[in-house]
């Protein structure tokens, strides 16, 4: 009896680990349910989950032993990581076709949780190029693009440092946006370049919380109104932080209109 109890505790723990990885890496709610169904079928349990932005509650019934377990897990901070999503969906399919045991699934989930990001310098350069790209799309010339490139790089660097030092996520974005916008405006002034607005407006675009905002609408479409609203408000506060930083920079440099 004791063994059965321990086993279903472990199963609940693994399922919660999967849910928490999906939620923090930026999956929308219906995707979380699809994965949960797939994995809970594989380890032969019937799982019911309550999903929230910051915690999960799971109750599962072990189909083999009729053991019931309930667990709650708090989620760590969110950080979008699509490699985790991809690896989890492939792991689910592979486990289904190859009939993995619970131990194998558990080991694979632990491996996926440790997946690495790209090297920091690669991220910095790629995102800076995308800042320059935005500047081009908004109609900037080559000088504007260069300004946006370096402003984005500085802003992202500051934001990464702030995240590493465990600042509040909204405050980290505020710092990043402030540095990016002040770099953009000061270099524009120094180079005596007229289109100062363009560089400022595009140098902060990399901070826009695209994934939470898109997920909020898809969640609401799927009927998960509460998680959808939570995601929207979360994304909106990030945009608010950016706007606040821009407001401060515009006040400091006495820029009239963006």
């Amino acid at each position, binding site marked *: 009896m004791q063994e059965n109890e321990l086993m279903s505790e472990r199963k609940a723990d693994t399922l919660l680990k999967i849910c928490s990885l999906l939620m923090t890496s*930026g999956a929308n709610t219906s*995707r979380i349910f699809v994965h949960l169904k797939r994995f809970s079928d594989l380890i032969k349990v019937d799982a019911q989950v309550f999903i929230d932005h910051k915690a999960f509650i799971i109750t599962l019934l072990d189909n083999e032993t009729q053991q019931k377990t309930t667990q709650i897990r708090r989620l760590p901070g969110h950080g*979008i*990581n*699509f*490699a*985790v*999503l*991809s*690896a989890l*969906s*492939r*792991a689910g*399919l*592979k486990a289904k*076709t190859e009939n993995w045991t619970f131990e194998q699934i558990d080991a*694979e989930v632990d491996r*996926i949780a440790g*997946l690495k*990001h*790209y090297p920091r310098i*690669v*991220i910095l350069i*790629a*995102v*800076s*190029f*995308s*800042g*320059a*790209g*935005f500047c*081009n*799309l*908004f109609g900037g010339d080559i000088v504007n693009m260069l300004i946006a490139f370096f402003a984005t790089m500085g802003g992202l660097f500051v934001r990464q440092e702030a995240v590493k030092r465990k600042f509040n996520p909204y405050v980290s974005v505020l710092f990043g946006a402030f540095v990016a916008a002040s770099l953009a405006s000061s270099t524009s002034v120094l180079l005596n370049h007229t289109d100062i607005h363009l560089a400022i*407006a595009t140098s*902060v*675009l*990399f*901070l*826009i919380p*695209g*994934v939470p*905002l*898109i997920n909020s*609408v*898809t969640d609401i*479409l799927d009927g998960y109104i509460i998680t959808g609203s939570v995601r929207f408000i979360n994304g*909106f506060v990030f*945009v*608010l932080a*950016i*706007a*606040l930083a*821009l*407001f401060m920079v*515009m006040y400091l440099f006495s820029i009239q209109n*963006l």
Partner: protein
Amino acid sequence: MILDITIVEKVIWSGIAALGFGILFNIPRRVILPVFLLGGIAGFLKFFALTNGSGVVLASLFAASFVGFASIPYARQKQTSPFLLSIPSVIPMIPGYFGYKMLLGITQIAVLGESQNEVETMLSITHNGLNMIFILISLSVGVSLPWLIFKDKALKVIRLKKKGDLV
């Protein structure tokens, strides 16, 4: 339609913008090229729709629904989930610009107090806010349009060809 150099330039830069976000979101290495291509095509379609007189909301819907449909066969070929390709490709079209323009207008009214052109500011707040919400809805609806129309029937997504090579 004139295929001049500016269009090619815009396509390439939209692709790079999408790719930058992809790298920031840590996409697996084998979907780097697909994200670049889909992002570029999405940028082209949006630009094409805009130059042919459609508004920015409809242009976004057009581009995002193309990405939504194109990502399914492409994702099957690359053995991954379609969302992994479609979300980074449409992220550059997220209306962040309208979002903080709206909030800047609000801060102007709330913090700076009275000024002569308050009516204009209110109008721009409404305009930018509505634009932001509707573009956001069109992007999400566009990306998930295949699922909304066909449900799950035709869309058995991934089939693993090779063993190993997870991620």
